[in-house]
């Protein structure tokens, strides 16, 4: 909800029953169309009249986009699967509980019942200037209101600042990158598979979009390979209040330990840049090391190297550093001093 000061503008509503029909519609309407999943993000843009699509293509009737399938030790999750269904799914809970934890921390029960995984990973940024209807770069204007010396920008980026300094707000996105997921995308020319890590794009590539989807493409499914099944997972989200709130910073990590040593690791942080930030340098650093305070310390410091703060978001540096440390310590950390 940005402002909700208005009623929705008039548009044509299409409710195709198949992926092919949906793509034909999108191809026909091009940039004038808006894809509607659970609507939690989309409806706000419409009610605030900040987006005025001529056509809205509702994916809600397309059965093949819904549900969770087991595939050779992994999972394929339809883009239209509600977050609450993911949270409940036995295989998600057993092997990929990282995604369960992330999905369960999204917003509120109502929103998790209605919001879809495809929508959650594809959602737009929450920058309050942009959401408030200010015509900034991302909205097609020629200024970034969040990046002036006096802007109020506590929620904005500490990495990869470009003309836009907004962050990706999704909780499930970093979990999917940590699980080495891939995104199944369908367009008029057929299907393409994009590693989750490459699904999101920064303003340097396209300032008006958060992901690689072209206007005539839809995300049909998210595939989770067995690579990280049953690893030691850690997810933590820091938010101002304990419900119904976006992350100030979140961290998702999947670590495989053999003996006392880390043998495999994927670690991702979100809400610090326009895209979920995979910490490859940290992953490399911790391989072969034990999950202890010393490793955590080194990892935390390395994770935030190169961070550049704005006027009000310097706290995100210690916050991210500490979250990375906690991810390495793991959930059962005990304290002696």
């Amino acid at each position, binding site marked *: *909800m*940005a*402002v*909700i*000061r*208005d*009623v929705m503008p008039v548009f044509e509503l299409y409710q195709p029953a198949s992926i092919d029909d949906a793509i034909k519609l999108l191809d026909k309407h091009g940039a004038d169309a808006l894809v509607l999943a659970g609507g939690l993000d989309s409806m706000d843009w419409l009610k605030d009249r900040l987006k005025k699509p001529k056509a809205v293509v509702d994916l809600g009737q397309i059965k093949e986009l819904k549900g969770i399938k087991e595939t050779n030790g992994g999972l394929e999750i339809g883009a239209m699967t509600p977050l609450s269904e993911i949270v409940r799914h036995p295989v998600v809970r057993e092997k990929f509980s990282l995604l369960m934890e992330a999905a369960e921390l999204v917003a*509120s029960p109502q929103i998790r019942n209605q919001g879809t995984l495809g929508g959650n990973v594809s959602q737009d940024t*929450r920058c*309050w*200037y942009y*959401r*408030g209807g200010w015509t900034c770069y991302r909205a097609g204007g020629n200024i970034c*209101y969040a990046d*002036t010396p*006096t*802007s*109020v920008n*506590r929620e904005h980026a500490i990495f990869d600042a470009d003309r836009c300094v907004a962050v990706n707000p999704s909780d499930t996105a970093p979990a999917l990158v940590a699980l080495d997921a891939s995104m199944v995308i369908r367009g008029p020319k057929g299907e393409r598979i994009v590693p989750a890590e490459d699904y999101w794009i920064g303003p340097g590539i396209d300032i008006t979009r958060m992901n690689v989807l072209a206007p005539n493409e839809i995300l049909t499914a998210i595939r989770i390979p067995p690579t990280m099944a049953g690893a030691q997972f850690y997810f933590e989200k*820091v938010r*101002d*209040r*304990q*419900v*119904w*709130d976006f992350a*100030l910073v979140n961290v998702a990590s999947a670590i495989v330990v053999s003996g006392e040593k880390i043998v495999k690791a994927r670690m991702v942080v979100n809400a610090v840049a326009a895209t979920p930030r995979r910490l490859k340098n940290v992953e490399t650093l911790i391989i072969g090391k034990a999950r202890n305070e010393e490793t955590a310390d080194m990892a935390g410091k390395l994770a935030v190297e190169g961070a550049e703060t704005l006027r*009000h*978001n*310097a*706290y*995100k540096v*210690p*916050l991210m*550093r*500490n*979250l990375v*440390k*906690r991810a390495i310590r793991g959930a059962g*950390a*005990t*304290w*002696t*001093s």
Partner: protein
Amino acid sequence: MANKYSWPEKPALLGTSVKRLDGPDKVTGRAKYTYDINRPGMLYGKMVRSPLPHARVVSIDLSAAEKAPGVKAVLAHVAVGAQVMYQGDPVAAVAADTEERALDAARMIRVRYEALPHFANVEQAMATDAPAVFPGGNTRQGATEETGDLVAGFAKAAHIVEATYATHVITHVCLETHGCVCEWDGDKLTAWISTQAVIQSAQQFAQALGIPQANVHTIMQYMGGGFGSKFGPDSQGIICAKLAKLAKAPVKLMLDRKEEHLDTGNRPSATAHIRAGITADGMLTAFDGQSWGTGGAGATSGFPLPYIYNFPTRKRTHKDVYINAGQQRAMRAPGHPQGCFLTEILMDELADTIKMDPVAFRVKNLPPAAPNAMWAEYFARGAKAFGWDKRHATGDPTPGPIKTGMGVSAHRWGGAGQGSQAHVDIMSDGGIVVKCGTQDIGTGTRTIVGMVAAETFGLPLSAIKVEIGDSLLPFSGGSGGSTTAASAMPAIRVTSVDALEALFAKVAPALGTAPENLVAEGGRIFIKGTPAKGLSWKDACKLIGTEPISVNGKWAQGLSGSGTSGVQFAEASVDIETGIVRVTRILAIQDCGLIVDKLTAESQAYGGVIAAINFALFEDRILDRVTGQMVNPNMEMYLLAGMSDVPKIDIMLNNMPERGVIGIGEPPTVSTASAIANAVRNATGATIRSLPLHPHKVLAALEQEKAGGTN
């Protein structure tokens, strides 16, 4: 002096926990709030507001809106050439047959502005080179308050603490937004209005519209919160009435959330630079404070300082600073949460200079005890109940990132009553109607009006029909300053006692006794001491005859009091690696004179505490410093606690029937935030001298004070 009106010594109902009369209606949706009022042929009003924080209106073109489909009335609220002083300042309005069309038409109103210099914060307004934005100056320096010889006071101090403390601007965030439905019949106006002052709203409508007050009828049966921001029709109410007149049809005009944040009031900010002294054995010696604050565009920002504690020598100056933002309005104990925070954080810092326990230190520096100054007793009771003896010195030594601490703070308030009138009818079928032009703003007034009457007549609450919330009823004041119960309850008591006397006069001959020998208890009227000699209420009322008993009465001295004191304890845990503060326990001790309904009294305390948790941890009206526009005018980015953020809250109400009824709607919200901030300081060792305690501020403070263990 006890008299016939005095509160009963052994009440049957008063002081017990009684569920709200209108609870079932509220939860089933039968209760009609202003928002729910729909009239035949009703139109929808929508306002056009200034998007700029300060501008001159160059032109207003209503023509396109006038021609838009469904539009029945369009008006300009300001003249061309006038200045708008804040984002959200009303400029024009429309009424149309549907809400959608009203919104469409509002967008067609073309207003051209010439932007003028503006201030988005106090620093800009106080700058020496600031442009002249407000006529008469950008600031207003108040008089200096001074007591005793400050130099001598500081000379006695063994330690001096000097620092700057601050609270921020928050808005009222009433769940039901402001607004009304206006309907004209010739030159008579009926307005259903979400208001804390139903009769005063009629008066204000009349004045603003230039019609006799007798021609205005205002109604408010149910309201979704006001907290001090709903004392009249405001611009939206007057505009709604004008639109209805122009359109010759009823108009509903309810504000949306953004308008609500921008233009329906807020709690002013408060900042003070303070120097204070303390002796080696913990006596306060001196207080020197320069404070300032902003209540928005041209509004005041005063607050009491120092708060409660006895500084033998003190000096204080205050400056109102005007910025281009919506004007402040009274908000739950106006001024007190600010004065309390600024003083109470300082108190803990002072106590720490001599390593004295904060409770002992406070008790040592209290003003003399009195029925409205019971702090010493409450500190002791609360410390015991809360487990204060388990509090560690500043800085939780527990290993790991979660640090826990305790804090304490005290508060005071007035809550006096006056002036209410009431009317009671007793009919020959036994029916009772109690009328009073007070209003139930969600606090439970409807229920306690019924309780006082039921108590007096010796009947169950269900026997009383309560009529309130209507300007045609006997006079009562607006619900502000925690005065409602203390004003209306005495009026109901007096009128009910007089009505009962009139009934006794009719019943006495039939029972062969004098009226003064009768009592009404347990649904019967009987001769005192001999319950068998009597009649059921119903049978007794049959003796009334054709002309009902119909009695007017009013508030009388001796049934209400004023002045309350309270103390609150807070326990909070701080995650020093994330900056997240979680309040884990609150204990609120509050005196309140005679408790009418224990349940609704407690409910006020719960609500006050939760509102203060919002003030401490979440809410913040944030204006962009460049454009002067609010960046979070919604309920996503303007944060309020969710269920999971609300801790265990214990309420200890001190029933003091001998003091009469005293309002407590406001005081329980005063000291919570300071107690929480002191708990955070006790947990972490880092002193955060301003609110809100957002994680970014907590992390910054921890980094700065190097109190964190693992950074």
